[in-house]
């Protein structure tokens, strides 16, 4: 089963090292493969379970991303990951 969802990075500093790590930590709680796609002029695909690839995405504030999960728990994974992005990774304003 494949599930995907569009999100927008809302925290001020973007998807820097720590939020990237939080994302990977959450992704790793699930069996599903997680891919993150960044569009725009130079589209990039990242493995949602690789912190390096997530940082290299360089998703700054306002960047739209598509999160894609494939596997038996895809639905739950997407739910948790979207929640994390929408919570601005718990960063203070």
């Amino acid at each position, binding site marked *: 089963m494949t599930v995907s969802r569009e999100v927008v990075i809302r925290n001020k500093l*973007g998807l*820097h090292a720590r939020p990237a*790590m939080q994302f990977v930590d959450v992704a790793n709680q699930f069996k599903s493969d997680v891919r993150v796609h960044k569009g725009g002029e130079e589209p990039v695909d990242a493995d949602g379970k690789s912190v390096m690839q997530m940082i290299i995405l*360089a998703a700054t504030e306002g960047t739209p991303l598509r999160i894609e999960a494939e596997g038996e728990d895809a639905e739950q994974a997407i739910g948790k990951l979207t929640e994390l992005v929408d919570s601005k990774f718990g960063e203070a304003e």
Partner: protein
Amino acid sequence: MEIRKGIGVSPGVVVGTAIVLDAEDLLIPKRHVPLENVDAEIDRLRKALAAGISDLSGQRDEVVSKYGQEIGGIFGVHLGLLADKTIVNQFIAEIRDRHSTAEYAVSTIMRKYANAFLAMSDKYMSDRVKDIYDVERRVLHNLIGQTHQDLSHLTEDVIVIAHDMLPSQTAALDRLHVKGFATDVGGRTSHTAIVARAMGIPAVVGLGAITSEISGGDIIIIDGHRGLVIINPDAEQLAEHAEYRTKLIKLDKELRELAHLQPETLDGHVVSLQANIEAPADVNDALARGAQGIGLYRTEFLYLTREVEPTEEDHYKAYVDTVERCGGRPLVIRTLDLGADKYTQAQLANPERNPFLGDRSIRMCLHDIPMFKRQLRAIMRASIHGDMRIMFPMISTLMELRQAKMVLNDVMEDLEDEGIEFRKDIPIGMMVEVPSAAIQADAFAREVNFFSIGTNDLVQYVLAVDRTNEKVAGLFCPAHPAVLKLLRDVIRTGQRNNVSVSVCGEMAGEPLYTLLLLGLGLTTFSMNGPDIPEVKKIIRSTTYEHAKHVARKVMSFDSERQVMHYLREETRKIIPEAF
């Protein structure tokens, strides 16, 4: 294969294996492992990664318990990177597919990521490159062990890649095995450039981020003529460079044949070409290239090669060794010129706000008379072994010169009392490198036997340009009319007062300025040994009359661009291959 353009500061072309110095001097020893060791190498990598993870977890737990979860967070990222399957698989693929060593695999892949970070436009993101370096170092430490390899004991020929070479690093170099330099920063007169030219090896500086683009073990071509660095060249390029190199070696051989000939113009005007050296062993090479003496012996290298201050005996041995190698030719010993860009480790602890205007050189010596006297005693004791002269650096006021001479007199009186032999009439000279000394040359001429114009510092102080700051290094130009006026005046003052004048800055060894300096009436040129043949060739190919004409014309220009342009044209007429 990639080509990077920088500033070629020391000529020559060389091909070799790179070692990259980071802040911790971790060196990647080898690039390849034999095929049968590939599995063992992957095993080493896994163990190093596991050790890195266990070190980090320990540190994280400690930090978290002391400072809380927030601070511990960054360790989490580093842990995540070490355990990142994408990266680990890339390491393993590099080892398996290319038979790379684990060190090389880690270094080369992490540097690719570092570059991706550096390229990010978001400042906050690009700053995170530090994390990448940190993780790289951590794994390398576990692979190589905690021992920092030093550059003084190399077993094979290498090309040193560094952000910038510190004087303390170059002083300890294994000169036999270092075949070239490439650095991120620097200019024509930076320390790396000076050392490379003195060693006669090619160097390219001002390359930007070359340390992140090259990994230890990469094959590198350094082209010091064209200012190029070629990373992992293909076969065609290697062949092209081999050919180019042969051509240069042939030219070099022709120039070497000039070694036995007099530096005399076509109309019979004779000058003296001398060499700048840093260590006693440099004398032999300088003489082989035709030096008629040593116009500048930089004694600071005695201080920089050891942790503690050299003793009087250390000085004495080095000076006797040097003067004996000179075989009766003149040797100008410059007293300690430490400070500013040449710190010792001890000085680094308490940095000055403005070191080039600070407590350096003769000022530092006059603040530490016992240290100064140790060096002066050694010089005076060695003075009976050859034609030795003594020179004080960075004199800016008459009082300073008189104080320095007074200390020297004290030393002589002590030696007299102790019944130790020395040369009583040793010629005493001073560097003219501070504008005040150049402007007041008349007054100084009455108190010394010779002047030596240090153009590097003089240009820097006259034009207010820090030559090591790459943002303004372009403003550093000996051809600036203000500098040339001072040069002309000092040379004239010397002639009027029977004080011999030499130029010992980089300018003396640059073919571009030979005609001009000759025409201004300069009689002694002191330069790095490898520059002597080319300068001599120019002198032997022109007349003094023509040089004087060139100098007069140059002095009528009011911008350095006109000066450089005109000198380039005139020099090209004499040796077309120079530019």
